[in-house]
């Protein structure tokens, strides 16, 4: 769960399309580390294009600093596209599996909470309930808060994956608000 410090931070959500080559994940994370960006979450998988992987990276910070981060990522030869989707209307999803301590009557309470959050019970034992929840990071946080009173024995989260809403891919989709200052793109256009 998020610490107090983490709760007060503003985050940017970026999507990267990268060559599916060995070492690319290392290079991306090294650029972020080198330029001083903390990674809140990072997930990688295949995209719709063969040979192209898609990363969703949530980093601390917003605004011009993120623009610089984006440009530095573009300098990696294997990085094909960088989308800063922070200001976009998008679908954010994350998967969490959590083992919650509970026996007897408490199990019913846990089950109730799970139902309320659309979490699925995937394992049951004498003294625990294991739930799986697929939702926005925000909803997952709320669910975890709800069940934390019972005692969370083990937790794993995938990190968020995201997609902009609308029929077009990435940057071609509409941002919620046009950013006020135009900035130079890689091709030199404004």
């Amino acid at each position, binding site marked *: 769960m998020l610490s107090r410090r983490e709760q007060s931070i503003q985050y940017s959500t970026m999507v990267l399309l*990268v*060559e599916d080559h*060995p*070492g690319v994940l*290392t*290079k991306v994370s*090294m650029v972020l580390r*080198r330029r001083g960006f903390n990674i809140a979450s990072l997930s990688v998988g295949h995209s719709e294009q063969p040979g192209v992987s898609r990363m969703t990276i949530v980093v601390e910070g917003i605004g*011009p600093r993120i*623009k*610089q981060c984006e*440009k*530095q990522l*573009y*300098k990696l*030869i*294997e*990085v*094909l*596209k960088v989308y800063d989707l922070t200001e976009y209307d998008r679908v954010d999803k994350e998967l969490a599996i959590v083992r919650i301590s509970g026996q007897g009557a408490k199990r019913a309470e846990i089950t109730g909470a799970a139902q309320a959050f659309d979490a699925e019970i995937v394992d049951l034992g004498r003294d625990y309930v294991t739930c799986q929840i697929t939702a926005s990071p925000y909803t997952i946080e709320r669910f975890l808060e709800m069940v934390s009173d019972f005692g969370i024995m083990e937790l794993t989260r995938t990190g968020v994956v995201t997609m902009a809403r609308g029929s077009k891919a990435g940057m071609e989709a509409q941002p919620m608000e046009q950013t006020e200052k135009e*900035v*130079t*793109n*890689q*091709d*030199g*256009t*404004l």
Partner: protein
Amino acid sequence: MSNDSKNGKRSGGQIICDVLLQEGVNAIFGMPGGASLPFYDALYHYPQIRHYLARHEQGAGFMADGYARAKNQVGVCTSTSGPGATNFVTSMASAQMDSVPVVYITGQVAREFIGTDAFQETDATGVSIPVTKQNYLVKDIDELPHTVKEAFYLAKSGRPGPVHLDIPKDIFLAETDAPIPDEIEVRGYQPASAGHRGMILKAADLIKDAKKPVIIAGHGVAISEAWDELKVLAEKANIPVITTLHGVGCFPETHPLSMGMLGMHGMYYANIAVDQCDLLIGIGFRFDDRVTGRVSGFAPNAKIIHIDLDPAEIEKVVQTDVPIVGDAKTILAQLNPIVEPAETDLWLDFLSKLRSEHPSENPPDTDEFLPQHMIRQIYEHSDGKAKVIADVGQNQMWASQNFFYDHPLSFFSAGGTGPMGYALPAAMGVQVACPEDEVWCVTGDGGFQINIQELAAVAEYKIPIKIGVMNNGHLGMIRQWQNRFYDGRLMGAELANPPFDKVAEAYGIPGLVARTKDEADDVIAEARSIDGPVLIDFLVAENEDCMPMVFPGASLAETVEA
């Protein structure tokens, strides 16, 4: 040219040599080792590529760097796995920071041993990620022809930089009939070139209305060979030109519009010009902290036009009014026809008066033999035609200040990373690239000893560089800072040196000594008359500080002259 084997297949080693030939590389700098022996065996059959045996891989890296800068082409160096590869790292970092196209070829343990902590195994590509533009560990012989060709393409195109090829020993030996491609296309890599037309028009408008404009020309002008276009722009629009350290020589320093170099040890009048200008046209430079001084006080009244090939440099340090992303030569060629002269007569009068009152470029008028005199004497003896390679520290700053560089690609220095020990091997690379030119290595007595072992290669290959050791018995810049900012508590600043002329002679290189200005005149003349390498130990005044100076945290307006 290529050494085809009988079955029409070529070995990995042959493929690399064939690409080298295709790319016009006639020299390779390196040191062999176990994992690269098969590559050396291939090189043995390619006498067109001359191998220069360095005495330390860092030396080989800097030789390739000097070769690349002087030719504006890719330089190539090679080492074995493990320590050979890690010894390259400092030179890689320098080439990366200074945008120099160098291809590094390192041997790696054979594929079956990778990941087993084998003898001389280091994760070389893991180490080189942050200090290269791109790197490859080649595990499939069929991919080698394409990868080697791509390495050259990436090193040279766009913003140049070092590219590292890590080749397992058995890949050098494996054979393939896969062809070397003629053209390379890399998706996800499209260096910008033309520049945005609207922005260029906007720049022309700003220039027309400017009263106090300056041009700052950086390394990008040298890389894109845009010096002619720069001259047209300056003369047509009547704008003074200031250069960064890496821009030195891109605009003739004896030209009436030249205002020398700016920055921490820049010319007083150049720094003041930037402080007071109302329009700053930055071409191919990255607003480095040694150039800007305190950023909040940098060119406070100026609108800024920034031309750079690398979009990541735009607004990295300062806010820009007109960003133009692209190749300097192409952009200036579009800007020049539409640019109109600015009304700068008053401004130029002001600067010219400022310069005559503060002649930072001239050595103090004294009988004492100062380090500045040594540089000015080399300038006068060589008629300003020498190529100068400076090391790092006071010698580097004086070499840029007290010589008037009128020709592009005539002054080289590792400005970004500041690796002491650069000058000697880099000068060797420059001389190999330009055998007809007079090449001077200017180095301090500290930095000289960092790669002093390369004197062996200077002697072996009779590389006719003139080595000028500016010997003040100190790590001079350290002494200067400890005196000024640490109340004179000298710690690790004094050097106990051997007699460098004797060291040179032990290597078989004539060694000369100069203790006074007159002696310096004599030995410089003697050195220039010798057909081959010479070392001169210039015993200069020990306590001279390098001035002008912008103190740490100060702005250019606060440039101190003494």
